[in-house]
């Protein structure tokens, strides 16, 4: 300051501690006196530069700096919020378009498939004249494929409807709910014997109806992929962990190829050969979608010694809506 005559102002003294050692000592002393900012000017006496004045303004400059920072932060936050709202609206639009496409496609695909199946049924039932054995075998193939396509369309429709569901939260015990899916599973696999092992006691807030569908898919998956077991052992465990409910469904079945794990929850992915296991490959995708709708996560892994375990983590409190509508 003495040399150049330029006024030096340090609004935040604490930020100036990178100065050389002697200055640090000086600043340290100033800080100890709770001086927070410092201004140095050159004073002139007659025509000679003589003296440097030290003026301190405890805290004032800091408050000013804070206020400026606040205003800048608020401006930045507003900009980001506006961008987020635009982005959310755009995502919602894209999502709606996609849903419309998949629903329309599913509806419009269904009618022709049912016509194909209908005529094959009529042919096989002899309603349009006699069919010899070779032709019958071909028609059976057409029927099986039409039935499979019909099934796929039904699943696709159900999956796309799922995204538009409004969750109706209620409190329930997920283990009891899981147990209640067994009747349906036993109907579906009448020749299988299922052993049910449940452990834990938790309460969960979620959409009970959707959660049942989710559990049904996990239990069905566990039974389906345990074909070689005399008794299919399903273990279901629940516990609290921090602010989450952790629920797992394990089996002693065939597991899945570890390198395909990232495809487990994608729709219409089948990780095993067609002839070994029936199904369209939407069970786990449906389960995962329901878990995610609730703000939860799901993962699958192979167990040591064979079998798979699916573990889901659900927030104990209902998740706030991820996308808000314009009104909100």
């Amino acid at each position, binding site marked *: 300051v003495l040399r150049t005559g330029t006024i030096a102002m340090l609004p935040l003294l604490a930020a100036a501690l990178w100065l050389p050692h002697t200055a640090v000592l000086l600043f340290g002393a100033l800080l100890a006196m709770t001086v927070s900012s410092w201004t140095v000017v050159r004073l002139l006496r007659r025509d000679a530069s003589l003296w440097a004045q030290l003026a301190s303004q405890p805290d004032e400059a800091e408050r000013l700096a804070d206020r400026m920072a606040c205003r800048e932060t608020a401006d930045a936050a507003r900009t980001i919020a506006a961008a987020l709202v635009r982005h959310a609206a755009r995502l919602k639009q894209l999502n709606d378009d996609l849903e419309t496409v998949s629903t329309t496609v599913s509806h419009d695909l269904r009618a022709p498939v049912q016509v194909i199946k209908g005529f094959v049924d009529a042919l096989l*039932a002899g309603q349009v004249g006699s069919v010899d054995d070779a032709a019958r075998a071909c028609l059976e193939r057409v029927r099986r494929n039409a039935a499979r396509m019909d099934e796929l369309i039904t699943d696709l429709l159900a999956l796309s409807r799922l995204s538009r569901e409004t969750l109706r939260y209620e409190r329930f015990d997920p283990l009891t709910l899981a147990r209640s899916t067994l009747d349906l599973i036993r109907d579906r696999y009448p020749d299988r014997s299922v052993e049910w092992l449940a452990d834990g006691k938790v309460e969960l807030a979620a959409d009970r109806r959707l959660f049942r569908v989710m559990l049904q898919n996990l239990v069905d998956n566990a039974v389906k992929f345990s074909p070689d077991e005399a008794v299919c052992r399903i273990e279901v465990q629940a516990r609290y962990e921090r602010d989450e409910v952790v629920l797992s469904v394990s089996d002693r079945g065939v597991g899945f190829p570890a390198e395909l794990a990232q495809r487990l929850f994608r729709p219409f992915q089948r990780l095993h050969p067609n002839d070994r296991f029936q199904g369209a490959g939407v069970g786990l995708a449906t389960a995962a979608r329901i878990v995610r709708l609730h703000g939860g996560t799901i993962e699958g892994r192979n167990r040591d010694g064979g079998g798979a375990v699916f573990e889901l983590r659900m927030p104990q409190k209902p998740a706030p809506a991820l996308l808000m509508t314009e009104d909100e």
Partner: protein
Amino acid sequence: MRNLVLVDDSPDQIELMRLAIESLGIDRPLATFVSGEDCVSAIASGAVTPGLILLDVNMPGLDGPATAARIRRLAGGRTARIVMMSTSDQPEDVRRGLEAGVDSYVMKPTGHRTWVDVMSAVTGYWYRTDLSGCL
């Protein structure tokens, strides 16, 4: 004898229903229409006296519910049994149908159900509930 009336914009669906009716040995005189408008004008002119009307929900022009509402306003259509048929099981579609004055709502065959199963159920319903005494 009053007519068994089939209304569906798809001739394929009509043919499937016809085959099923034939194989069930149902000998009611059959009238088929590929649009709601055609069906309404045939009933209005008296060319057709409907006993049971099987009506597709989604049709271009007059759709199922609109056709049903028009039929109900005609002298010839007041006492007919109207069964709405659809591939949809959505509550909204069912509600629209029932509000238009249909008697029943039936899903077209999916899965293991065949047209014979569906037609057998629907005509059984007709025989049980028709009170005109002149099927």
